[in-house]
């Protein structure tokens, strides 16, 4: 067996806990900035809470706007994070080790944020009670809440399990520098982990069970979310492809968000030694497949839409929704997404010259923004489209909606920064496991030596 150089191990340990012990000036500056944005969002929400949904751009016809778009988007991001980690774990991809912690943390944070939006969209949060008082088992709304809550619990367990050995490490090695409060957290949550072989075996088994369970669960969450739209008779939504279309879209945006998180924390905490260009290229490969697939799904969906809509919305005139998307009032949004959210990112990660870390990060940024735009394009035009022979409705988001959306977007990086002030940013346990597995693979086999 080849010995693992001590220096490498120490680097992993030190790098993993660096955000806990030495967050740096940048942390406080960014925390203040994001805190400011979230505070502004909180003020906006308070205004909405006091005055009702009147302060939003929502109206009688367009009852779903930014908030529902945000819900679909943020839950989609979460889904991408969890699924990336779970699939890489189950396929035993050795390069996953430095990525999984950030991907799983992002899944939890964005899910919590996304899960708040249905409540925000209600205007009066107490109306959420009606779901339990008058819930209908035939309604996707009820199942959506069930699926999201189940997925949320599973994501937390999925995040927690591989954290146990690292918590034990922090418990035993950080000492007083971590502070009393953190020490209590580490002691309680590490469950007396000592790294015995039986403990490791148990943990591995449990992690495998959850990794398997979270995949169908994540698929179900976004499928049920898509059926909120798909089972209605609204133009643009009544589509059989919506389940897989949403799932693919969620993965597309989720993997892009994982890349952004990796790029951000890699730069901020100098994790270049652990997260290299190859990690980004591997994720970019996944992104490329998802991007092309999503483009195909969108084409297939719009093609059938074009025929189906003929003469449906208006008493006269061809496919109104498609027309509005392609050439009408939503054309700017639609073509912006197609150009900046699909074609340019796919080109950036396809061309070897731009297939660099900055190129992949730029592509991911475009995808994340573009996919949010796509959610708006899915939600708003179908609501604004007339299903009676009347004019198109209009929707213009108010400052309140914009502020709350920006606050949610700021809450994800802030949530992650706070997470990594408590928990190691890289899974020390998995890094060591991966290193040992690699060492074992490279070690000369005794039988070969005998020859």
């Amino acid at each position, binding site marked *: 067996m080849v010995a693992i150089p*001590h220096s490498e*191990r*120490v680097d992993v*340990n*030190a790098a993993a*806990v660096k955000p806990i*012990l*030495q967050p740096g000036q940048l942390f*406080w500056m960014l925390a*203040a900035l994001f*805190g*400011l944005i979230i*505070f*502004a969002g909180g*003020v*906006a929400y*308070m*205004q909405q809470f*006091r*005055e009702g*949904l*009147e*302060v*939003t751009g929502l*109206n*009688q016809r367009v009852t779903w706007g930014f908030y529902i778009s945000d819900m679909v988007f943020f839950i989609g991001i979460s889904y991408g994070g969890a699924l990336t980690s779970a699939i890489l774990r189950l396929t035993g991809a050795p390069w996953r080790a430095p990525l999984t912690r950030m991907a799983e943390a992002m899944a939890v944070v964005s899910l919590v944020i996304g899960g708040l939006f249905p409540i925000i969209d209600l*205007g009066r*949060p*107490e*109306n959420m009670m009606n779901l339990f*008082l008058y819930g209908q088992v035939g309604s996707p709304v009820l199942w959506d809440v069930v699926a999201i809550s*189940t997925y949320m*619990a599973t994501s937390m367990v999925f995040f927690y399990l591989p954290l146990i050995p690292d918590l034990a*490490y922090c418990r*035993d*090695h*950080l000492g*007083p*520098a971590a*502070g*009393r*409060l*953190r020490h209590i957290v580490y002691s309680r949550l590490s*469950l007396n*982990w*000592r*790294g*015995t072989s*039986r403990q490791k075996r*148990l*943990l591995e088994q*449990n992690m495998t*069970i959850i990794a398997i369970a979270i995949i169908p669960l994540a698929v179900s969450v976004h499928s049920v979310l898509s059926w909120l739209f798909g089972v209605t008779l609204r133009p643009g939504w009544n589509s059989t492809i919506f389940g897989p279309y949403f799932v693919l879209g969620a993965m597309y945006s989720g993997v892009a968000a994982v890349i952004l998180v990796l790029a951000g924390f890699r730069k901020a905490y100098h994790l270049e030694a652990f997260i290299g260009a190859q990690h980004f290229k591997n994720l970019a490969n996944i992104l490329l497949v998802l991007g092309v697939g999503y483009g195909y799904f969108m084409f297939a969906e719009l093609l059938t839409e074009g025929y189906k809509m003929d003469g449906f919305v208006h008493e006269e*005139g061809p496919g109104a929704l498609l027309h509005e998307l392609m050439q009408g009032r939503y054309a700017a949004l639609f073509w912006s997404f197609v150009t900046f959210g699909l074609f340019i990112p796919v080109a950036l990660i396809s061309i070897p010259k731009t297939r660099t870390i900055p190129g992949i990060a730029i592509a991911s940024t475009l995808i994340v923004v573009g996919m949010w735009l796509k959610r708006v394009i899915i939600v708003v035009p179908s609501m604004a489209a007339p299903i009676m*022979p*009347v*004019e198109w409705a209009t929707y*213009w988001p*108010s400052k*309140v909606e914009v502020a709350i959306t920006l606050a949610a977007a700021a809450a994800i990086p802030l949530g992650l920064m706070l997470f990594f002030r408590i928990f190691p940013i890289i899974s020390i346990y998995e890094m060591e496991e991966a290193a040992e597995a690699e060492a074992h693979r490279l070690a000369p086999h005794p039988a070969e030596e005998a020859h």
Partner: protein
Amino acid sequence: MRATTRVLLAALLLGLGLAFGAGTALADGPGLGSAQTRIETLGPIQQTPGQHSITLSVRLTGADSRPVPGARVSFFVLTTVFGDRLMKLGDALTDTTGAASLVYTPGQVGVQTGVARFAGDDHYPAAQTTFKFDALGPVERHHNAEFGLETVRSGLPLAIGGLVLVFWGLLGFVALRTVRGIPAFAGASSPRVPARMPLPVPAPEHGRAFPARRMAAALALLLVVVAPVAWWQLNGGSGSSGGVSLSTGSTRWGTNDHAPGMEAAHESKRVQLPDKTFPATLVETTPAMALGPEGNLSAASANLPADVAMLDGKTFVLDTNRGRILGITGDNELSPVMEGEWTGEASLRGATAMTTHEGRLYVPTVGGENVLVIASYGRVEGAVQPVMPKSRKPVNISGIAVTRRGDLLLSDTANRRVLRFDRDGAFLDTIGDADSTAGEAGLLGPAGITLDDAGNLWVVDTVGQAVKQFSPEGDFLRSVGAGLLGEPRAVAVSRRGDIFVTDDSAMAVLAFAADGSYLGAVGAGGPAGSDPQLQAPHGLRVDADELYVMDRFAGLVVYRLP
């Protein structure tokens, strides 16, 4: 010592008693104890099985036990979610018998507490009453759609529910296994997690693990930058945030009470009209909406018409929801003159204003893409395409006027402005492009507009609840009707300078003298009023000594002016 304790205890009890008494007095609300105005429930308030709503009815009486008509009564229900709060259900005006009713669809089941409150006015002090009612909850309105896989469908929720339980069970199993198994397998040989090399733990920053000073600095920054903004927002802001002041056409959802901003908004909408009638006499009424044999609107019927215009001795009605122009025949019936396009940029559907100029009707599309020029016999002779300046929101045209030299004036409600174009549609300038910070001169929701003989522009400000006069050059001159107008829609000025304004909330046309003094109401009515000629008055014109009022429900109502 004991004596001191007893004194202190007595003082404490006394204080508590006083505080409780004061709190109870405050909780009684405005003028509860007043004997001058009474508000009482009308009959038992109870939800009838099978009905999804409850009618909340109260009667308001004055000191002499006479009913108080035309008073605004607000209804609330006590909600206990997130603490006790009054949730406003809505307002209702009392009729001639002093009764005010509001239909409420309860969202919660059980006995609820309702409050009816009259805020008081110059003549009557405030009063309120509380009452209990038993809400049965909403009527079952969900019906499962029938389709072929009924068996699968009925079993599917059960199967999915079972699957969800399996997932939770699995999760519980893993959690339990982790929480119990890992400590059990810890062993005793290894007291610490092995670290192959000790971690070089850096010294805590500033000698402390928790950088309190930095946290405090960040919080201070937050407070310094955000607190003024928050304070400004919480105190109502500019009124422009969230488009609150532009919500003329929107439904108010989720309005929570105890909101100073909303209370102010309700206060501002509360209009008490003096009991004064303008001496106009009803000449004739042309019903606008006629039903065919099958109960649908007939082909000749208008569908919520919004405006009226006179040209070549004929009267024309703008059929808003059908996007066409109707004429009044000699038999006092409606007859289509111009059938508009159903969709597209030349469609008149949704248009709410028209005017005349040089023997032609000028009708703008609601989005402002075209102003159709229509001859009196119905032929579209052309269209002016106004070159719209940049706008923050989609344009929503709700008023039009044409100057003597042919310049077009269009009021854009959504963007709070009146736009002036030349006869070819080239943009000239903007009048009243302002917001609430512009004070009296600002336009919050410009709707109907008209020009008087001197060329002055009169603009109805629906949200600002006034009519504003601008000089031919566009300078603000004065405001008329403030404090009397609730939801004004359109304005017309007679030759002698009297100003007539349709008011949706008053269901009347309010008349003002040239100096702005209030002359009285025309066609005033209430839910069960004495003179229910007008229900939703919108457009209006003064032609010689006759006042033409286009009521969206009642049709065209003509009055002779004194």
